[in-house]
């Protein structure tokens, strides 16, 4: 290495090889393996690490409360604004059909099925993934690219324990309340629409509601909301912690968070609903 041309020159050949057809194929296979195995594997590893970090002391109450408040602030009003027309449109669609069949007094029953069991967890999912998850991913991602997460690790603090666990719990915890909020606001919207605009009677609405509804309906919806919250929190954390490439990287991570969370939540919704119907006997009319 004492003469100038020598340094590393012999290694140029390796680099050139990567640009050939073989290199491209290898790149393609790498990409496939990445999508099919590595990413889910890493996500699962993060879930396990977060699970372990959950039991570490001290519990980050302050961060939990701050994050809960933050999630409420970005989701509460949009949730209500989505839930009111949702209840109304269900009454309108189903109410119209039911009136034609001459069974208008059962509009309340449809609200149970539609709103409490399905719509409210789904609206919650949309809001949790779209508003809370994306904001959380942007926050964690920008911390990552500003090297704040690295700095935290170097200061001897586990970012999963300090940042991710409280966020995940906050997401799940607020998910529970949002689900309740959507149920109540949606039912009220449906009730108002049915009674005031479709000439339904309050008694029929409530009586048919009670005939169909049972406590496990609400419980399964709450379980869904809780699981959705955990999922949204974990996906946001995973994507945020793996953001790279500057502000654009954070934007990409947020985008992917929303899409992946939606897909996962709809899948989970289906699975939990299927399980619910298997496990809990339904009430007859």
């Amino acid at each position, binding site marked *: 290495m004492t003469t*100038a041309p020598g340094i590393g020159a012999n*290694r140029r050949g390796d680099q050139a090889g990567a640009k050939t057809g073989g290199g491209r194929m290898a790149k393609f296979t790498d990409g496939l393996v990445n999508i099919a195995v590595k990413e889910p594997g890493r996500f699962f590893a993060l879930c396990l690490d977060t699970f372990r970090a959950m039991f570490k002391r001290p519990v980050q109450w302050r961060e939990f409360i701050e994050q809960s408040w933050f999630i409420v602030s970005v989701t509460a009003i949009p949730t209500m604004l989505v839930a009111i027309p949702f209840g109304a449109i269900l009454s309108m669609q189903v109410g119209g059909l039911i009136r034609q069949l001459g069974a208008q007094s059962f509009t309340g029953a449809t609200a149970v099925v539609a709103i409490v069991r399905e719509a409210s967890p789904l609206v919650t999912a949309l809001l949790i993934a779209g508003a809370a998850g994306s904001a959380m991913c942007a926050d964690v991602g920008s911390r990552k690219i500003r*090297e*704040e997460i690295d700095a935290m*690790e170097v200061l001897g603090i586990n970012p999963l324990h300090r940042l991710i666990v409280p966020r995940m719990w906050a997401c799940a915890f607020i998910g529970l309340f949002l689900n309740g909020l959507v149920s109540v606001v949606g039912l009220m919207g449906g009730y108002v629409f049915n009674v005031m605009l479709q000439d339904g009677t309050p008694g029929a609405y409530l009586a048919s509601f009670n005939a169909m509804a049972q406590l496990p309906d609400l419980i399964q919806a709450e379980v869904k909301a809780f699981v959705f919250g955990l999922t949204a929190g974990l996906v946001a954390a995973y994507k945020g912690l793996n953001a790279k490439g500057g502000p654009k990287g954070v934007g990409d991570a947020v985008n992917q968070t929303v899409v992946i969370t939606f897909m996962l939540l709809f899948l989970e919704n289906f699975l939990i609903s299927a399980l619910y119907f298997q496990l809990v006997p339904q009430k007859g009319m």
Partner: protein
Amino acid sequence: MGVEIRVEGLTKTFGRQVIWQDVSLTLPAGEISVLLGPSGTGKSVFLKSLVGLLKPDRGNIWIGDRNLPYLSENELYETRKLFGVLFQDGALFGSMNLFDNIAFPLREHTRKTEAEIKRIVLEKMEMVGLIGAERKLPGEISGGMKKRAGLARALVLDPEILLVDEPDSGLDPVRTAYLNQLIVDLNAQIEATILIVTHDINTARTVPDNIGLLFRRELVMFGPREMLLSSEEPVVRQFLNARRQGPIGMSEEKDVSELEAEARMGADPGRLPPIPPQLLPSDGRIRRTQHPPGEWLRANGVQPPPGSFIDEMGRNWLEEWPRYVAQHGGAAMPAGAGPAQAPPPPPPAQGPDPHQPGPSQGGAPPAGGRY
């Protein structure tokens, strides 16, 4: 007292891309070292590997008696408490003001009262010249201030190892000079092992005890400051003198034809510039790990380039040193380097061939001298 870091055969790849391989060096306890290298040679990656943020593919990193890549997560977090790290942009927590940022490690890791924390934080803020900016958020201050705040946060737990990633990027020359002085003063005060990653040649020439140079996925050379500053190795020479003539090209390295063309044009590598005297602590004390000027050159029989060790006041530190040691505490001198044991070498003769290679510059260049 700082901790020795011993790196053995370290290799890091990202996918198929080799960042560097077989890097071996020892950062002596309590000394200041600088790691240089053209942009994109993985200096920051090396720094992050030293704190365990990135896992090397092969090799060992001994921090005292702990081998970093093989530690459990808990042991790793424990070991990291020895470190203070200044990241390139300071890496301050954006949601906290400067005071809380700097107090963060104290609140997390110690049981100090708020009054004590306040005293320590203000002391560190004063040290980096940030008094009055306690309530500012990181988004409201300049890059230089962020960097100084990051340094204050890195220092707040009195680390035994301080890693500094490009302290001078984005700083004006005056602030860079102050920051360099601050690093030397800190070393004198807390005797931490310090590694600075930088591009700034002036910093590299005047601050450290040791210099290393990464180029083309390898550690080209690591050793005492004087060894590299008097080296004829083309890469080292080119980089430390910021020249275009040499193996380092615009993109990465020059190919053979470019170098031949350069040789045909008769590009003269020129004389080595004089070795500047090393920066001393501002209170005049001698650092415990300070090497007397000319120590390595003398031990290896290398003639320094003419004009070396002469400061801006015209003092020749090869002659000045014994007097200085006598005035500022001989106890702090490394054994065998005091004025009684080692008379100063004769001032460099004017006119000898400065390019005469030293004995250590023949075959294998890396890791000369004591390392």
